[in-house]
């Protein structure tokens, strides 16, 4: 047992190479994800950051083979989770994996639960299916799960509408953790919640992650949340990963102009007089991406060269990678954030 665990630590729970997702619609082809590589070590938490339309959720759905087809077309050179090739396994096998080995928390707790079943039944359902136990046993375990997320087990017989938003999200977390998943994908799990409740839910997720050695992918647009819970960060823009590395590398030694732009757009709690420096312009239309670097039209540092070829994600030391052509042409190039 011990030796198996050791081996697992060396391997990665998630290994994706060259993932591409496009949606072939009547209005044109939407290029949602355009060739991304992702690796995640066991017990680690990866923050997938970006704005609306960056392709974060599509990436997560593709990992679980949940992209609707048609119109979605998913291509990749490698898609392994916990050593299993997700691309080639049968649908039946896949259903055993989803909810057991990998589970997902969706953004909106208000719609993720079924209004006509009690929360206890909903937690028990996944236990019953995946652990092959009797209904009574599953319900008992469901009660345990509720207590784990800080809800008294007596409330297992209540319906979702009897719970507040924060409590519903705890129920969703209880469902997703009920079968001890190895990988948890959390898609904006706290966006719909108030800050004090958000703090509680994040704290809870951190605790449970430690307790069960779960690896996690945290999808969010909030750089503050990433700083609180993640070990690694990948910043996405228009279906590309533009910067990737450990939290210290990406936050401490930011290299990509888009990452810098995100930081500059945030109000600074310590210096309230500072004017915000927004990123000018808008996210490119995914049916009609600009040639070359997708961020070039909004980038303050862009040169003519930038719109010639899509920059590759290159290692810049340690685990830190960046996709910006300026560093190739100009050895002394530094973004403003680094100059201070």
């Amino acid at each position: 047992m011990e030796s198996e665990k050791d081996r697992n630590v060396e391997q990665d729970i998630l290994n994706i190479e060259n993932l591409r997702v496009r949606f072939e619609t009547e209005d044109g082809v939407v290029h949602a994800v355009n060739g991304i590589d992702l690796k995640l070590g066991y017990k680690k938490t990866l923050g997938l950051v970006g704005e609306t339309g960056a392709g974060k959720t599509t990436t997560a759905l593709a990992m679980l083979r949940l992209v609707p087809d048609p119109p979605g077309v998913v291509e990749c050179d490698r898609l392994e989770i916990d050593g299993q090739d997700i691309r080639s396994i049968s649908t039946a096998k896949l259903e055993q994996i989803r909810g057991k080995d990998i589970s997902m928390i969706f953004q909106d707790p208000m719609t993720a639960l079924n209004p006509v079943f009690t929360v206890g039944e909903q937690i028990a359902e996944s236990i019953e299916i995946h652990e092959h136990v009797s209904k009574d046993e599953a319900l008992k375990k469901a009660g345990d799960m509720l207590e784990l997320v800080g809800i008294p087990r007596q409330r297992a017989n209540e319906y979702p509408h009897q719970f507040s938003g924060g409590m519903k999200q705890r129920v969703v977390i209880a469902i997703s953790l009920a079968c001890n998943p190895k990988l948890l994908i959390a898609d904006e799990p706290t966006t719909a919640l108030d800050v004090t409740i958000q703090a509680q839910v994040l704290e809870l997720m951190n605790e449970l992650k430690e307790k069960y050695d779960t690896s996690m992918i945290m999808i969010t647009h909030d750089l503050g949340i990433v700083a609180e819970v993640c070990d690694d960060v990948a910043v996405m823009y228009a279906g590309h990963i533009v910067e990737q590395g450990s939290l210290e590398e990406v936050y401490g030694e930011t290299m990509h102009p888009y990452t810098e732009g995100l930081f500059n757009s945030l109000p600074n709690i310590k210096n309230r007089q500072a004017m915000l420096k927004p990123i000018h312009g808008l996210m490119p239309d995914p049916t009609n991406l600009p040639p070359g670097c997708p961020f070039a039209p909004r980038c303050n540092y862009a040169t003519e060269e930038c719109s010639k070829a899509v920059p590759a994600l290159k290692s810049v030391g340690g685990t830190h990678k960046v996709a910006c052509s300026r560093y190739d042409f100009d050895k002394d190039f530094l973004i403003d954030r680094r100059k201070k």
Partner: protein
Amino acid sequence: MADNILEVKHLKKYFKTSRGMLHAVDDINFSIERGKTLGLVGESGCGKSTTGRTILRLIEPTAGETIFEGKDINKLSKREMRHMRKDMQIIFQDPFSSLDPKKTVSQIIAEPIIENKILKKKLEIEERVLELMDTVGLAERYINTYPHELDGGRRQRIGIARALAMEPKLIICDEPVSALDVSIQAQILNLLKELQQKLGLTYIFITHDLSVVNHFSDDIAVMYLGQIVEKAPAEELFENPIHPYTQALLSAIPIPELGHRRQRVQLIGEITSPIEPPAECRFLKRCLVCDKELCTKSSPKLIEVSPNHFVACPLKQKELGFEVE
């Protein structure tokens, strides 16, 4: 003497429900100096939006005075109020549902101008619309587009242009950037700030986002279940929060910097129901420091504990050496 554009005194809004009166806004007092911004923060359900709407009489108040430029607008007739609203405008949270989908950008912006008979000639109206679009940074080419063709940031700019069409003195911004991505959010916040400087506007800025309110406001009032629990200049509030709820709220903000994983003031317990609440501190059940006797005596009063810093916590008031009734 400060030039207060708006003074709100003992403002109340109760809603009738089957289980009794819901105290959505319960005895709120504040004033705003001309050209300044008051941030109204709190979590969902604390009554901040209802406060904004009650001030404009979009919802009729149950009791209290709203004194705008020396006049109690709660006493005005419907017709006088309609006239008064030119000076007081509102920008809504959701630019996706607050614009008429069947109208073009120019029709939407022109509507209040025509409706209030500010300009009558077609050419003048057209010129004014273009001028307003320029003010809020909307390119002229969007004049005949429909809202669904535009992104959230541009739609919010239409909402702002529409509010500015009346040349208001006061604008209530109800979560104006909550539905927008961060890079777009910063564009809109900067625009609102520029407009304030240029046009001398006064804002009431309603939001749940504490870092935004800190950046944007001169004074901040923190609301909890229909009441203001603390009010102070922004800097003072963030440096020296006194009310236990404010402290918990501030400590819950995730900070996007390294080395900031810190000890939180965790809130536990149930939220007091706003329906027929007892006359005691409403934060009591979630408070970590409360004094069973002192805090249940009566509904806490907002007391000025240091210049311009008001707190409604009997325990802290006593600690700071104030007499608690």
